[in-house]
């Protein structure tokens, strides 16, 4: 039985991946410190005899040192995101040291590592779409806005350096914005959560900047499909892969789309929020589109879910689970 260890297992993506792998007959171990993930997300996994959960911080060295089970694939999703004022150092620390801790564990275990990165690493690169070979265009270090991207870029390098030095096979997956059931509604996972919550309450929709920035969105089950294919396919070891969809859209259009899918008859009230009110030294990325040729060619991966369908399911889940 193939044993997959998932860090950040109680999070949105981690929990869905755990479920999928259990369905497919894998043995799964989840680690999460529950700082952002919740145990409820694992309610379908926890009863399984093939699932083990540890409520642990990935920076807990003693725990990792003592972790002696044989693992075949280590999926590293535990991360700290979107540094707000005062949390930049924490972001850098969790993300860079977390990756290092995981790589050390993989080195001892002689197992594969799949690292969850982000399409934010392409930064301000004006040439669309982004292929895995595209330049990473990052703004000034004084802007805390880039701390998360830098921590990911550093981690990517660290993964590949471990692969060189210790022959740990690694994959780097650069994810678009993933949405779907169980996603957080506070903006941590992207604007769609906030829009859904506010649209259901028929409140104004907060849009950052002019709303014309373009982002790539991928539905949860498609992202999980991509990751599962990477896990099952040892032939892709060493590759950096974009995991997204062909659906890039403007944030303002996303707001309108969610508003109409919720079924509100009137026009939405859009509340534009200037970046300078949110962050100091913020720099926006105008557009992100992902070239998915490599994932399609190597994995046969294609994101099938249309955005309307995916959002409908997400709204449905939200209606059933979150309204009190």
């Amino acid at each position, binding site marked *: 039985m193939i044993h997959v260890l998932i860090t950040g297992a109680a999070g949105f993506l981690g929990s869905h991946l755990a479920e999928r792998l259990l369905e497919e007959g894998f043995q799964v171990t989840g680690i999460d410190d529950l700082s952002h993930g919740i145990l409820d997300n694992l309610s379908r996994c926890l009863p399984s005899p093939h699932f083990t959960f540890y409520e642990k911080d990935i920076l807990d060295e003693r725990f990792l040192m003592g972790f002696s089970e044989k693992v075949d694939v280590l999926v590293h999703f535990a991360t700290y995101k979107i540094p707000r*004022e*005062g949390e*930049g*150092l924490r972001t*850098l620390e969790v993300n*860079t040291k977390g990756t290092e801790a995981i790589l050390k564990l993989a080195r001892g275990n002689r197992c594969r590592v799949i690292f969850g990165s982000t399409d934010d690493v392409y*930064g*301000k690169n004006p040439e669309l779409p982004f292929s*895995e*070979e*595209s*330049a*990473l*265009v*990052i*703004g*000034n*270090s*004084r802007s*805390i806005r*880039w*701390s998360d991207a*830098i*921590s990911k*870029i*550093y981690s*990517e*390098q*660290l993964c*590949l*350096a*471990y692969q*060189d*030095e210790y022959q740990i096979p690694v994959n*780097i997956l650069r994810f678009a914005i993933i949405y779907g059931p169980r996603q957080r509604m506070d903006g941590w996972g992207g604007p769609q959560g906030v829009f859904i919550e506010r649209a259901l309450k028929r409140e104004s929709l907060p849009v950052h900047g002019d709303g014309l920035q373009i982002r790539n969105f991928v539905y949860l089950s498609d992202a999980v499909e991509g990751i599962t294919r990477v896990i099952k396919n040892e032939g892709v070891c060493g590759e*950096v892969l974009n995991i997204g969809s062909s659906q890039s859209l403007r944030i303002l259009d996303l707001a309108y789309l969610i508003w109409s899918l919720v079924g509100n008859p009137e026009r939405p009230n859009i509340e534009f929020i200037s970046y300078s009110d949110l962050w100091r030294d913020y720099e926006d990325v105008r557009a992100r589109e992902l070239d998915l040729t490599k994932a399609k060619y190597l994995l046969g991966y294609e994101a099938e879910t249309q955005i309307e369908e995916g959002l409908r399911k997400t709204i449905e889940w939200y209606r059933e689970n979150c309204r009190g």
Partner: protein
Amino acid sequence: MKTILVTGAAGFIGSHLSELLVRRGYQVIGLDNLSYGSLQNLTSILHDSNFRFIQGDVRDRDLFEKISDSVEAFIHLAAYKIPRYGNALETLDVNAKGIENVLKVAQKRGCKVLFASTSDVYGKNPNLPYSENNDFYLGSPQVRRWSYAISKILGEHLCFLYGKEYGLRTVVLRYFGSYGPRQNLTWWGGPQSIFIDCALKNKPMPIHGDGLQTRSFTYIKDTADGTLRALEREEATGRVVNIGADAEISILDLGKKIWKLIRGSDPPQIEFIPYRQFPGRYEDVRRRIPDIRWAREVLGFHPRTSLDEGLQSTIEWQKGITSFG
């Protein structure tokens, strides 16, 4: 009298800077693990009462704590460079942990920190010259050379975040390639040392790619002077400062100039080496020139040494240590 701790003190920049600081009346503690630096570089100040050398690693926090009692400022130069020939892991590890240790100790003691970053962070940015606000254009992580720039960008972020979250006074110096006596004689020290060696031995100078990639070359005395100004002028605190000369020259022209200074009118011997001969994948940066207006206007930084003058004294030094056997 102020005490300054210089990491990487036995290296090329570190030794010149330590000399300058001692001459200027500072107490200097020089830390170096001598992995690449050498005590010979410190001959002129090793027995000076205002200089103390400590052999140790920048990743050793306990050691830092022990030797930092009286320190008022750290100048963190120690770094691992050039993943061109591999060992990206060492580069990522030493560079990230070194600055983190410095910042942690400095935070406890309220010291100022000068962090040596690099012009390499601007990467392949096509917009020249590079002002301190320019974006970083980094290549694919499959190209190991970028590990150096990325480790330095992480260090820059740490410096600014310690500034924001703990009020620490930090300065990020982005050095553009320096040369001069005591420079490293391998590619680690830049192409000029290789070219000088070849010209002295009447051997062909290896030039990577077509040689039309350009760089600026800063004489080491100017680099040290810029660093001293950033240390002493409060205006630099919380800023990034480019430290370099802004005259542009292609690598090919640099080779020819060095050849001429050493061998006069002999036609230069040049061997072009295509990038594909490097192990792994390699990406070169075509042009790299600093915009130093801020340092000039606010810090009074003027890299005065002309390339001819600087190369002449570098050649003199390198002649003295080259064996022609």
